């Protein structure tokens, strides 16, 4: 026992403090695995980030003008058919199935974020 303690005393490593958690870009829930399909609702920031990414990667859109409040036709100068395309891209991103009448009413980023956030099965 004494030999073991003596050996351990010599090879003991100095205690290091972990680097300060300055950059935690992901939210804490991304490390927590939830096993029920009804618990893991998306956080609002995640929804906003993903919606803005989809809108920014649309070829007819100027990425610097995209904010969470932007209206597709008034602010970004898009067509109504472009609106339909954006809604379809959002459906593909979040694996949703939006009924036709509801999809017709989604006109701005605000409405899209609200709809997706309140949808129980948004992925």
């Amino acid at each position: 026992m004494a030999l073991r303690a003596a050996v351990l005393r010599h090879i003991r490593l100095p205690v290091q403090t972990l680097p300060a958690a300055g950059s935690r870009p992901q939210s804490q829930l991304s490390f927590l695995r939830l096993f029920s399909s009804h618990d893991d609702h998306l956080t609002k920031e995640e929804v906003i980030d993903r919606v803005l990414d989809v809108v920014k990667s649309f070829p007819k859109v100027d990425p610097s003008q995209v904010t969470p409040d932007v209206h597709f036709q008034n602010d970004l100068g898009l067509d109504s058919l472009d609106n339909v395309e954006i809604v379809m891209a959002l459906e593909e991103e979040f694996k949703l199935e939006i009924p036709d009448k509801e999809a017709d009413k989604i006109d701005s980023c605000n409405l899209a974020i609200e709809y997706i956030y309140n949808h129980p099965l948004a992925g």
Partner: protein
Amino acid sequence: MSGATAAAYLARRAAQKERVRILYRRALKDTLNWAVHRHLFYQDASDLREKFEAHKHAEDLDTIDKMIAAGEATYNKWRHPDPYIVPWAPGGSKFTRNPVPPSGIEIVYDYGREDNE
């Protein structure tokens, strides 16, 4: 008659625009069903978009109605027999797979052993 007042005209135009949007949405989804690979889909989607853009500036209400009816007929003719449906939506594979149990049902954890304590 095509609507004597301006309000009726605008209402009819708005209804037509909504029909066009819904038709474009369904046609785009159908295109994705047929052309599964993305590069083919982009090609077909831009062709579809050009078909819609060619008649963008039509003004006469009856002509527009006829064009929408023709478009819907083409859509019905080309509908995919096995479309992709999101799993939890009606028609998908997970629909009503795990329905919510009726309320008021509880699990009895000591069934048969209530007297034994």
